[in-house]
């Protein structure tokens, strides 16, 4: 296979970033659009061209550029590679990315810092593509940290809002905690395998025995998973994602729903060889996935901010993907990544369209009855709604089905928890849709439909949400990499999960359309529980109280004031003070009185004479 210039794929958005970032301030909006969209579309086109040239991709296509870090026997290059897993991710990233760029030209048209927004978005594309294309863990880490940075920049895009700044910082630092695990895993790999290249590492791992208990591979797998929990917002590091909704809505759609947050899943699937050697790590992954899925879904039920609902939904869906990885159905996980990218991007963009229509209103309690006023938005959101609820034959149904079947095969209880979660998912999304579009309008702003640049991409995504699951048979495509588990397709299990989804929709319809007063009654009945859930189990508060505040407090009151200024500097200054005191004592001798000096000299002479006497006596 000849050189495909893979580097062009991430480089084009980078060029777009540089042009817009350095010169964009003076550009008219149209030119900014051309640069930003052009670079991403070109990148998308290049991806398609590459696949066309590479054909079936039975084996990975690797391209090596130059050595990045070379020290001793360690040699890490800027190497990119494409295989089928990468291919899926590349299409999702560039495809959805292009759509969201188009959408953003409409959504952001009235915002200040227009060029800056697109520059950041292009930078994000660069890092995300680097993450996906990297042929070793370190290049992947470059993308990994880079998307975290872009997430930071875009969440904090509204620099005037303090909450945006806080959320951005939180996202970055929590991600850093995850990266800490990722980095440690890399160090262990280098120490034990001498390389970070995927091929070399996996070749070294493959012959190793499967570890039943703790061991090197378990440690590496778990540390990698720590990285994944940070990036993909899993328990216990999911707290940044709901706050990240401070960013502009296209960002939420692109970064915090469709692409970046799935990087953890991609990384887990990429390292499948390592995980497969450690059943313990796999169990941890699955259980964390289950906990996250349930917990986030319950919180999602109670939220009133439309974006927060979808954010918790994202967390919950990511939990699903990790369940898939944890039970060994990596291809099902990636399948869900793809379908989720379709319908969750659509949900967010649709929500953005609603927010745009209502002039910035995000609270569900101030919406209602909008289906007549913004019918297109309602139409596309409805597609996403059925897709996420798992209604066959739409996108969500296929991937969720795959996951649940695999879970049942691995451990039936996971299946049942998954079914309940699916029901809850259907419920809260339906709740959001009902509260938003049905009943009477409760707001004040005059709603207006979004421009075509916004609903155009929505329509494409709606189409994908409806038919994407059916046409893109991701597990089948990935079969050479992840052989399908010996699955017996059990119709009953499928029926049950579908029923759970429909039940969720039904209950939501009952509560929010037929009997609108009921939810408050129920909330009141479950008072304390409701409060606990509504306040997100007080996780943020617990983190603050248990980690952040003690850390800052101790640093300030003990380490700095006592330890540094008090003890260490005290010792230093104490030495100085002692010297001064002794000197002060000696200074009394220097009275400035010549006669007392003379007396001293005389006394000194006596001593010298005595010394002479002693020496001379000794000589004799």
């Amino acid at each position: 296979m000849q050189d495909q210039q893979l580097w062009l794929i991430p480089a084009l958005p980078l060029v777009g970033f540089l042009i817009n970032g350095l010169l964009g301030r003076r550009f008219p909006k149209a030119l900014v659009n051309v640069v930003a969209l052009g670079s991403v579309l070109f990148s998308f086109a290049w991806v398609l061209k590459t696949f066309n040239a590479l054909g079936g991709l039975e084996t990975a296509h690797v391209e090596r550029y130059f050595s990045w870090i070379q020290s001793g026997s360690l040699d890490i290059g800027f190497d990119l590679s494409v295989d089928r897993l990468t291919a899926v991710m590349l299409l999702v990233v560039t495809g959805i990315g292009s759509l969201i760029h188009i959408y953003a030209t409409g959504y952001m048209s009235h915002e200040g810092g227009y060029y800056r927004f697109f520059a950041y978005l292009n930078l994000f594309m660069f890092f995300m593509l680097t993450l996906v294309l990297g042929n070793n863990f370190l290049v992947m880490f470059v993308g990994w940290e880079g998307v975290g940075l872009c997430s930071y920049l875009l969440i904090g895009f509204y620099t005037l809002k303090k909450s945006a700044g806080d959320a951005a910082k939180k996202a970055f630092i929590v991600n850093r905690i995850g990266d800490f695990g990722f980095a440690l895993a890399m160090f262990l790999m280098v120490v034990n395998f001498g390389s970070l290249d995927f091929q070399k590492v996996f070749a070294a791992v493959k012959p190793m025995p499967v570890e039943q208990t703790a061991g090197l591979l378990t440690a590496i797998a778990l540390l990698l998973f720590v990285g994944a929990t940070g990036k993909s917002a899993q328990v216990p590091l999911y707290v940044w994602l709901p706050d990240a909704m401070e960013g502009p809505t296209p960002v939420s759609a692109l970064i915090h729903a469709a692409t970046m947050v799935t990087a953890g899943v991609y990384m887990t699937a990429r390292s499948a060889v390592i995980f497969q050697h450690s059943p313990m790590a796999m169990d941890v992954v699955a259980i964390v996935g289950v906990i996250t899925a349930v917990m986030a879904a319950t919180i999602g039920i109670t939220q009133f901010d439309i974006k927060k609902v979808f954010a918790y939904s994202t967390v919950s869906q990511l939990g699903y993907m990790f369940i898939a990885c944890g039970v060994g159905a990596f291809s099902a996980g990636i399948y869900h990544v793809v379908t989720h990218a379709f319908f969750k991007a659509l949900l967010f963009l649709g929500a953005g369209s609603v927010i745009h229509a209502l002039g910035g209103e995000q609270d569900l309690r101030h919406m209602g009855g909008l289906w007549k006023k913004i019918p297109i938005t309602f139409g596309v959101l409805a597609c996403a709604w059925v897709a996420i609820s798992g209604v066959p034959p739409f996108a969500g149904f296929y991937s969720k089905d795959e996951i649940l079947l695999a879970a049942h095969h691995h451990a039936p209880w996971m299946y049942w928890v998954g079914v309940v979660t699916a029901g809850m998912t259907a419920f809260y999304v339906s709740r959001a849709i009902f509260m938003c579009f049905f009943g009477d309008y409760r707001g004040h702003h005059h709603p207006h439909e979004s421009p075509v640049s916004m609903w155009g991409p929505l329509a494409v995504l709606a189409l994908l949400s409806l038919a994407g699951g059916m046409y893109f048979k991701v597990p089948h495509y990935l079969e050479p990499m992840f052989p399908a588990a010996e699955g017996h397709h059990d119709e009953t299990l499928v029926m049950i999960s579908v029923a759970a989804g429909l039940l969720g929709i039904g209950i939501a319809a009952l509560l929010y359309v037929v009997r609108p007063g009921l939810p408050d009654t129920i909330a009141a009945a479950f008072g304390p529980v409701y409060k606990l859930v509504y306040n997100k189990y007080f996780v943020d508060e617990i983190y603050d109280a248990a980690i952040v505040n003690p850390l800052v407090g101790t640093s300030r009151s003990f380490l700095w004031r006592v330890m540094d200024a008090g003890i260490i500097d005290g010792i230093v200054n104490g030495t100085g003070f002692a010297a001064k005191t002794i000197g002060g004592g000696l200074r009394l001798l220097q009275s400035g009185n010549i006669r007392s000096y003379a007396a001293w000299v005389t006394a000194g002479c006596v001593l010298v004479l005595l010394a002479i006497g002693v020496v001379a006596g000794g000589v004799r």
Partner: protein
Amino acid sequence: MSLLNLVLLLPLLGFLACLFLPKKNLGLIRMFTLLVSLAIFVVSLGLTAPFLDKGNGTWFVTDVPWIQSPEIRYHVGLDGLSVWLVLLTTLLTPISVLVSWNYIAKRPKEFYAFLLLLEFGLMGVFVAWDLFLFYVFWEICLVPMYFLIGVWGHERRIYAAVKFFLYTMAGSVLMLAAIIFLYVKGNTFDYINLLELLQSGRLALTSQEQLLLFLAFFVAFAIKVPLFPLHTWLPDAHVEAPTAGSIMLAAVMLKMGTYGIVRFCLPMFPNAARECAPWIVALALIGIVYGALVALVQPNMKKLVAYSSVSHLGFVVLGAFSFNQNGLDGAVYQMLSHGISTGALFMLVGFLYERTHSLEIKDYGGVSTPAPWLSTVFLITTLASVGLPLLCNFVGEFLVLQGSAAVNIYWTAFAALGVILSAGYMLWLYQRTFMGEATDELKHHMPDIGARELAASIPLIILMVWMGTYTKTFLPSISAANARILEQSKTRVEMRVQATAGESVHVR
């Protein structure tokens, strides 16, 4: 005359020439200094040629007698370890001049003259191959820095300057004693000769002597680094120093300590170094986390950056005492990248100070609205400082952590906590300073970055990216020099095996 001698001589000539400039003519003085320092930088670029070409070896050696008795030689040379530090010095001097352009109004002639003298001393430290010469340069650096802090500093400048001076002197006196001891034993001050004597075993030190000598050198260097708990002079010195002083202090002067550790402590006393390594690593690790935690709560920008230096330089010490190629390469790389990133941070803080005359973080907020480019430059520097990949600090930190992981993964885990915390304090600083709403008064006093400031920033930004991506420029020569140092610090272990076995047969 070799190029190195020229590079070394120019700042001294510039210093002397500066003294004869008319006292009143500020424009002439600063322009003269700028041109001189730029010329030095351009000439010093030539020094890199053999390293880019071949990558290893010692170049530009001059070895002539200086003082007959005791025999002290003017022995200078350049290897992969020194060359980049020299370049760092020559790069940051013109930047310091640019930064001081409007800021220094009091006694400008002396200020700029001292800057050139400082450059001379710093370069000398990095190229001296004679221990006595090294010591002389080491002390020369002290004088201009003392005056830079003491004359052009802020309110508590005298306290800070004296503290700086005494701290450093305390260490260097120990080092002088050790140097003299070595001279008495080996009858030479020449580093190469001494190393040869020590390695061949002709100059045999008892393990206790070696330990004491190692500690004498190490304490001198550790104070300069500064290693926890010898660091308390640094925040004071930085807060009080003028911007140019802070830049030179953080970016280059601290590297004297780490350079000394790598150059002298490891190869000359390998056994003692290995014996002490666990303790030193423990201090380095504490320093990394401690510095980061204390930086987290600083209300003063310069103090914050100063404590972050304590944290970052802990990595350098950690890497050096990992005794492997990755760790040592990382340590040296981290020295350079810390020089660039922290130098830039101090410079930017200086820019902010010039505008509002405050270093307190609470006096800022929302600066990015009136000064978007300044905040962009600051953000890039911040990101470099927190070790974002593709920017300079990442490479160094990665290699250091990799090196320490090869020894003990728990060290790495502990040190990596510092990386997390660095994101915390730097981003918090950025948020509190640049994000949010700006007051009208702040907006009024906050013009965006000017041409002169941009000229000082851009080279640093470019270097941050360059050093983060194309490490091939720097790393091979550093690696080669480090490989030799590692080799030197290994051979003596064999010697000791021989000695303890009491056999004259070669062991390996």
